């Protein structure tokens, strides 16, 4: 009961925030954090079960580009375009993941097949530049002012609220899975596929479900990112670098706890901003150096992620012996 109350109060506070505090740059960072948190949460949906995908950059790219292409070329509203993009990402996930699971491609192999997938999506976006703008990036065509059909708003507060809603939706899905039998099945599969199958679990189907869900959510994150930034480019929403960025942030935050990916997004985005601004152009390159070193240290010393390790530490009876 108390926990629910805490959640309610927290969420209300978050909703109220932009009406009290409206520094635009900080709101901008917050919106980015929320959208990326949602993307990282989506990744963790499967990552937490040992399905390490390096292909989510591809799904994100599909989400962003399909939405924008439909809008610019066919005038299809993002309200239809986003579901369509999610569908595309889901189908793509299905096409790649089904044989993977069918042929028992797991672990490193799975990670690298998906890596190749994000490589392909990236290359295709670049190579079909006549439609996608190639590496120059792509801008959804603007309508004047706030336009609900175009899902374009100049007011950051609107975006903040949208991103907040989506983010909360992501968490809700997480909790829903967490309490469903699917979680047991996925935990079992991640430990021992044969044994899970012997318990009656349809291993391929369960893995596919979670993969498609994760891909579809990621595509949605990509589409939102594109609508918010009003600009997408292969570098920012697609490819291997983006995939790695997702895995990084999610793991640094902690993939086994619901808020872990969110913490990961907060830490990585803030850290990058603070370091970049802190070092500025006085010590060029040092911000990335420090950022990298910090990430490595986080992962070595907090293997369960920042939030995961923190929670474990709070729970452990003798608080001074953290493993």
């Amino acid at each position, binding site marked *: 009961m108390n926990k629910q109350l805490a959640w309610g109060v927290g969420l209300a506070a978050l909703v109220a925030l932009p009406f009290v505090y409206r*520094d*635009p*740059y*900080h709101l*901008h*960072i917050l919106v*980015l954090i929320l959208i990326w948190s949602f993307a990282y949460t989506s990744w963790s949906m499967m990552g937490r079960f040992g399905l390490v995908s390096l292909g989510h950059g591809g799904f994100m790219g599909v989400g962003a580009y399909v939405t924008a292409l439909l809008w610019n070329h066919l005038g299809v509203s993002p309200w239809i375009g986003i579901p369509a993009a999610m569908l595309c990402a889901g189908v793509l996930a299905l096409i790649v993941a089904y044989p993977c699971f069918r042929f028992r491609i797991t672990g490193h192999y799975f990670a690298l097949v998906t890596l190749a997938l994000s490589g392909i999506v990236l290359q295709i976006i*670049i*190579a079909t*530049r006549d439609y996608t*703008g*190639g*590496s*120059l*990036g792509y*801008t959804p065509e*603007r309508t004047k002012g706030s336009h609900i059909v175009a899902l374009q708003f*100049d007011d950051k507060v609107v975006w903040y609220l949208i991103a907040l809603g989506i983010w909360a939706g992501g968490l809700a899905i997480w909790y829903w899975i967490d309490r469903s039998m699917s979680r047991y099945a996925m935990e079992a599969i991640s430990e021992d596929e044969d044994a899970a199958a012997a318990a009656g679990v349809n291993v391929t189907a369960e893995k596919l479900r979670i993969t498609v869900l994760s891909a579809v959510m990621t595509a949605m994150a990509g589409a939102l990112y594109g609508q918010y*930034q*009003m*600009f997408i*480019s292969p*570098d*920012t929403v697609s490819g291997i670098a983006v995939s790695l960025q997702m895995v990084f942030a999610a793991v640094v935050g902690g993939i086994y706890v619901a808020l872990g990916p969110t913490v990961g997004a907060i830490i990585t985005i803030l850290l990058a*901003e603070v370091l*970049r*601004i802190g070092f*500025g*152009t006085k010590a*060029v*390159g040092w911000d*990335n150096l420090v950022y990298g070193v910090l990430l490595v240290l986080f992962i070595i010393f907090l293997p369960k992620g920042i939030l995961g390790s923190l929670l474990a530490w709070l729970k452990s009876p003798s608080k001074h012996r953290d493993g």
Partner: protein
Amino acid sequence: QEKKIKIGVIYDLTGPLAGGGSELQYVGAKIMIDNFIKQGGVEGYKIEAIYADAQSKPDVAINEAVRLIEQEKVNLVLGFFSSAQCVPVAARVEQLKNFMWITTCISTAVVENKNLKYVFRPQASGQQFGLMAADMIEKNAKAKFGKEPKDMRVAIIHEDGSYGVDVAKGNEAGSKKAGFNIVLKEGYSATAPDLSSLVTKLKRARPDVIFHTGYNPDITLFARQAREQGLKFGALVGHGAGYGVYEKLKEGMGSDVNYVFNIDPISIWLANQSALDPKLPPVIKMVGEEFDKVKPGVAIRSAHVGMAASNSYVFFTEVLPRAIKKYGGVDPEALRKAALEVDLPEGGTMLGFGVKFAGEGSPIAGQNERSFPVIIQYVDDKSYVVWPKSQQQREPVLPLPKTSGFSNQ
């Protein structure tokens, strides 16, 4: 209260683009800004510059631009090397109604059909680069190659980023206009580990002229593999970026660099000083001296430095004073009106060209209509302007003489 103008300056100081020329641009802009700070500002306004590193990533560029505008409350953002950054940042600046002064990003797409109101680019566009290259070859075909333009075999190769694609479009348009026989047109990734099949295709296509647009590691990789595979041709025309950094080019290509062409806004140190506004040569000298302090011992001072310096200079001498005096301040609206009124004739800038921006309603609003690049040729560790005729310092050497390893003579 003290009068002050705050300028946000954004270039790539790290990441792949930094070495591709962005850092040199940064040096050039900084020299000029420091110069005006030293002079105590402009028209009673102190100048404060806040520098930011876009790290060769568009999202970082966007974030930094937003931060500088919204957090640091700068009056304008200046700089930008990559068109992939210019496009989204320009859109943001428009949305936030701030002011943006682009010193570099040359892609036509930055301004074309964007109806930009607050974004200005004194720089020539990528397509102009491409057109210029075709123009020189067309005019020299008969005399130097002994062929009609329609018999000229040209190949267009380019890195597949925004920059290469844009210039290649210009190459193609120019070639079509001149009636060349385009035997190959192909893009490749600047990070490709191998270009040998491209070279093989070129060998098969036997072009007289190769139009090439690339950054740096790919240019040297191409040149190295071309030499190793015995590619022969009559001329190699590069288009800025990597081709503008002679030091690196020479390091990678060795003696093969001789007679290579490069298209860029003219290097301010090569400009025909007698044709320039008389107040400019001392500024050019100052920039050169400052540059030598930053990077001592460079054989040919990079054109990148002068480009950023000159384009910044235009802002400080033409836009800013007018905005303050005539429109009463440094708000974006004042800057915008001032920029639209700039009217410099040819010879009015250190880069030789004049400045007049296309205004609202034009399909290229914000673009300097009087800018043009020039073609230089590297000959024995020196560079000479060889095209257009008006700026020519010597006749282009065409086709490659037999002494060159690439010569098809």
